[in-house]
């Protein structure tokens, strides 16, 4: 058998490269998105637990203070809306972590409308009683954008309109 020539190595390299699964990139992309979703859900679950325990302690404490968030929202009962992701003033990437806001206490049977640059994106936002998760549209330009939520309770009353500036890279 002849020795290994540079040509042999090149050919074998090309053969190996050519044997990569045709949908490799799609599979990798899916794996990254799945991992991101799992991690966000885990963070959200952990935060929900913290909020629930915190809320329970607060409601049981005598002379409880009203939270700054609820004061900003101008709601009669305390209703916290906290932006979990991105962290304060951190920019985000379009294919990075999505925007995620937590609501406590849960807005049971209420409606949350999501506006991004005043465009209603409620239909593409993921929502439950505790959380809103939004992936900004792919075509969003880099720079500052306005995210506004409308929290409407089951009686149709606007309970809050928190607004944040989101920086996209």
């Amino acid at each position, binding site marked *: 058998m002849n*020795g*290994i020539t540079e040509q042999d*190595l090149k050919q074998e390299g090309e053969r190996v490269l050519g044997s990569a699964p045709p949908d490799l990139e799609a599979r990798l992309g899916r794996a990254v998105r799945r991992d991101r979703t799992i991690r966000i859900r885990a963070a959200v679950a952990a935060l929900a637990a913290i909020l629930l325990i915190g809320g329970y302690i607060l409601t049981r404490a005598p002379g409880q203070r009203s939270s700054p968030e609820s004061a900003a929202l101008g709601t009669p009962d305390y209703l916290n809306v906290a932006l979990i992701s991105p962290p304060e003033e951190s920019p985000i990437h379009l294919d*990075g972590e999505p925007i995620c806001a937590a609501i406590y206490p849960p807005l049971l049977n209420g409606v949350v409308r999501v506006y991004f640059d005043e465009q209603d994106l409620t239909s593409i936002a993921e929502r439950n009683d505790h959380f809103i998760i939004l992936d900004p549209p792919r075509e969003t330009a880099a720079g500052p954008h306005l995210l506004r939520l409308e929290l409407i309770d089951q009686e149709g009353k606007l309970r809050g309109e928190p607004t944040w500036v989101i920086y996209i890279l």
Partner: protein
Amino acid sequence: MNRRPPFHRLIDRHGRTLWAYFMAATGSKETASDLTQETFLQAFRGWKRFRGESKPFTWLYAIARKILARHYRRAGVERRAEERLKSEAAGSCPGDSSDEERGFMIRQAVSQLSEPFREAILLHYFADLSVARIAESLGIPEGTVKSRLARGRKILNRMWEQV
């Protein structure tokens, strides 16, 4: 200034390169796919910390190297590959054609090289990286990469003669 490209572009640009690197290093398509996925997952988790001070591939490759080293440690793959090489040399090789057989033996021979030579050969011939890019990724001069490639080929030929 932040110079990070969108993450999905990293997958498009370097997914196959890393897959070929892992495939040549492990000899298994399944393992190559798993290790490539693990590399990108780790990269994605650390993406926020990537400041763009080095090129994205250099950063990805640093992760890939660690993952491959861990894979070798965990599975004792090197030892098994050696045993497989011996048994293949004595008997038959997988694959139907003589090209596949020869290719398999070439990959097995490459896996027997010591790390600096194996790395240079894998990156240059299997991951299709230029000498300049390997030098940048490994943080060594181009001349060193060239000499590792030349010496690696020489060692491979010596190993081939023995087989």
